[in-house]
């Protein structure tokens, strides 16, 4: 009996030691890197499959904090941050202007167009006004100037036949001075106010007043697109009749709530502005040890998961962005009517003007 106990004791000790060594070695093989990311990519980074590929194939464990894309590139990057992953090329350009010397490497990983989320009763009314048209199974805001005109003139929801809703027509976005989706929306609207042309600095005096008014009318604005989308879904058509966001958000939501999705599928509509802008997701490496993340995120399996489960379009060779495998309806195979964002210097002026308005 005593012998057994002793044996057990030794076994425990050896076992414990073994586990310790295993842990130690395992830790060694890992690179832990920390970054700041746009909130819309957090579920992707939380995806167990993605985590497993990053860890097993590339030895990376990613830790992150969520931040608005514009905020993260504008403020001084803290010492413990290894990479930034904002949601637009503009953010990268701003970072280059402000702290360009910190960049070790940067590369675009994903794309997602800016869309307007809405609800069946709203879209039906907008189709009647001729502002929205359905082509195949996708809804397009073919008359963006017309939509802006309604907003400018202070038309109420009841004026287009939606008597259940209080207040005037508006599109809710995130704060364009802090978060990317709102910022891109500002760039898109500025272009449309210019008559569908990419605005340059000399156009600003002409478009700024209306642009300021467009955002002032929203009142309180969220700082991150993830929170805004979540609220859109929770509170429904009354609180957010029209909401600017990324196409990827609905793809991800429908995947993550598969039991629930069929119940709301027919109510939630995606509107593609014509033209719209691409949100690109450039990965900015500021610490050499994180450079391995660039290749890791371009891994074919990761890119496939990114599209199928999180809705990020990839555009890489061999990876199909096939909407048929998605649960969300009305997502087109490709988005072709695109306008470039204004240059970063112009966007900075716009951000400044919208901040001044406060």
């Amino acid at each position, binding site marked *: 009996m*005593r*012998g057994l*106990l*002793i044996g*057990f*004791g*030794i076994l*425990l*000790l050896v076992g*414990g030691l073994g586990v310790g060594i295993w842990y130690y070695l395992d830790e060694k093989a890992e690179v832990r890197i920390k970054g700041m990311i746009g909130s819309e990519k*957090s579920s992707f980074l939380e995806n167990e499959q993605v985590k497993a590929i990053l860890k097993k194939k590339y030895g990376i464990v990613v830790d992150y*904090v*969520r*931040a608005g894309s514009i905020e993260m590139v504008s403020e001084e990057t803290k010492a413990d941050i290894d990479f930034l992953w904002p949601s637009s090329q503009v953010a990268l350009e701003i970072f280059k202007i402000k702290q360009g010397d910190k960049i070790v490497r940067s590369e675009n990983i994903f794309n997602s167009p800016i869309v307007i989320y809405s*609800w069946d009763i709203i879209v039906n009314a907008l189709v009647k006004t001729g502002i929205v048209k359905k082509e195949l199974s996708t809804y397009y805001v073919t008359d963006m100037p017309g939509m802006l005109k309604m907003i400018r003139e*202070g038309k109420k929801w009841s004026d287009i036949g939606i008597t*259940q*809703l*209080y*207040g*005037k027509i*508006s599109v809710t976005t995130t704060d364009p001075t802090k978060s990317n989706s709102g910022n891109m929306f500002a760039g898109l609207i500025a272009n449309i106010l210019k008559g569908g042309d990419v605005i340059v600095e000399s156009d600003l005096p002409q478009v700024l007043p209306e642009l300021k008014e467009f955002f*002032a*009318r*929203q*009142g*309180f*604005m*969220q*700082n991150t697109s993830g*929170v805004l989308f*979540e*609220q859109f*879904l*929770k*509170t*429904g*058509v*009354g*609180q957010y009749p029209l909401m600017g966001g990324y196409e990827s958000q609905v793809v991800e939501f429908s995947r993550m709530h598969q*039991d*629930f999705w069929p*119940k*709301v599928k027919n*109510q*939630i509509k995606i509107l593609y502005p014509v033209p719209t802008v691409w949100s690109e997701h450039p990965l900015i490496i500021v610490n050499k040890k994180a450079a391995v993340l660039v290749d890791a995120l371009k891994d074919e399996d990761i890119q496939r998961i990114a599209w199928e489960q999180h809705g990020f379009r990839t555009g890489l060779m061999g990876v199909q962005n096939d909407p048929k495998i998605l649960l969300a309806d009305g997502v087109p195979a490709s988005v072709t009517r695109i306008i470039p964002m204004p240059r970063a210097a112009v966007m900075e002026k716009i951000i400044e003007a919208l901040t001044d308005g*406060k």
Partner: protein
Amino acid sequence: MKTQLLPATMKNLPYILVAALIIVSLNSCKKKPQDFTILSGSENLPLEKIVTDFAKKEDFQVKFKYEGSVDIMLELQKNSLKYDAVWPASGIWITLGDQERKVRYAQSIMTSPVVFGIKKSLAKKLGFVGRDIKVSEILKAIREKKLRFMMTSASQSNSGASAYIGFLYAFLGHPEYISSDDLDKPELKKEITDLLAGINRSSGSSAWLKDLYLKGGYDAMVNYEALMIEANQELIRNGKEPLYIIYPTDGMVIADSQLGYIDGGNIKKEDFFKKLQAHLLSEDIQHQLLLLGRRTGFAGELENAPAVVFNPDWGIDPKKILSPIKLPRADVILKALNLYQTVFRKPSLTLFCLDYSGSMMGGNIDQVKKSMEILLDQDLARTYFLQSSPNDITFVIPFAGTILDAWQVAGNNQPDMLSMLAKIRKTKTNGATDIYSPAILALEQIKMIDSVKYITAIILMTDGESNTGKKFADLEEAWKKNARDVPVFLIKFGDASDAQLAQIAELTNGAVFDGRKDLIGAFRKVKGYN
């Protein structure tokens, strides 16, 4: 055999000890659950059990710290790392408070609109039943003195702030958005001041306001739909008249109850948080929340809402789309809260009774002095939205076995406040305890003031059992004779008698606050009640 075994055992003794140690330490890890503190709005009180039951299974001990939403915002700005998670009534307070971006994974657990509840017979009399009501109609009833209502302090609590913003929109003629300049309009000041004068009771917490309503004698309150449902269920159980719920078409705000993790770098806690959040969002718990009167599910729809909870007789229409107003920009909200505190709100008449008995000597009285400094020094008070207005009146009555003195400041003049503070600091501790005499004196002071114009409160802080002087019966007589609804809020400190304090709270529709862990916090919270 024996002789052989013994040395072997001796040799192996260190290993056995180590092994035993490992086992013991593993066991002790199991036995002591890890603490996890949630900074939460008081409306989540009925959900505490759902959370703690789940936590037990995960070997965590969850503690709720209940604060008003505005205080939650301030705590996030100042001491976010004291907490592991944050759960205010509305995510807006996380957005405003989380400047360091410590909050992660914030998600809405449920929603509930901020609404008016009016005693059904009165709602009928006012013609408010069965049709859409605008804020202006409610305001008209208040102006004509047909309706008086209770509302939490807009500068402390989300439900009060939401209703207040709804009023601002109405008075400004429903602009598309409220600008900073709008708030300076003189006609706004007049109207909103008149309206807030119709408030007969205020508080820093929505749950407490509901409890107070249940004590009877009140006609209407502003609160969450969920708390109206809770109140009505209890009113019906007690054979009393329910509240009829009004959703002002042009002044309603939805609270979205976001629960977020505060990242203090503890992986275990983070993991637990994610599980907890997933649990709260699971179908089963979401259904339980629905039964508790919270709106769950997506798209703002009330699916399978049981009629006993979302009762149409109480004015609830599960099919109706809730169309809220837009909240103003962050800076405008903060300016509006400051204006509420300093200009618009009904003035406060506050009477502090402070215990200077012998046992308060040393660190205890120092904490009281520090607390009073935060409330009286207007520069400090401002950082908590607790500054006084020019129309406020503040009394301080220091007591021990007898009343030691009484001081008064009318208004918010900083030198006056500081000179009263100097007196508070100078007074020495000594002697026995009589908590009833100062409360009676406070009531006598109130009698000399036209107290209808004020939200009145007596705040009595004590650390001991009343052992000399007047008795409870004396206070009871004085309070009843006074015939005004003056609450005595009690801050318990040291060895104060629970029974004595509870008795006073019960008599006066007041409440007891525990100041033993955080006296300064307790003073701040109490001040939020008027």
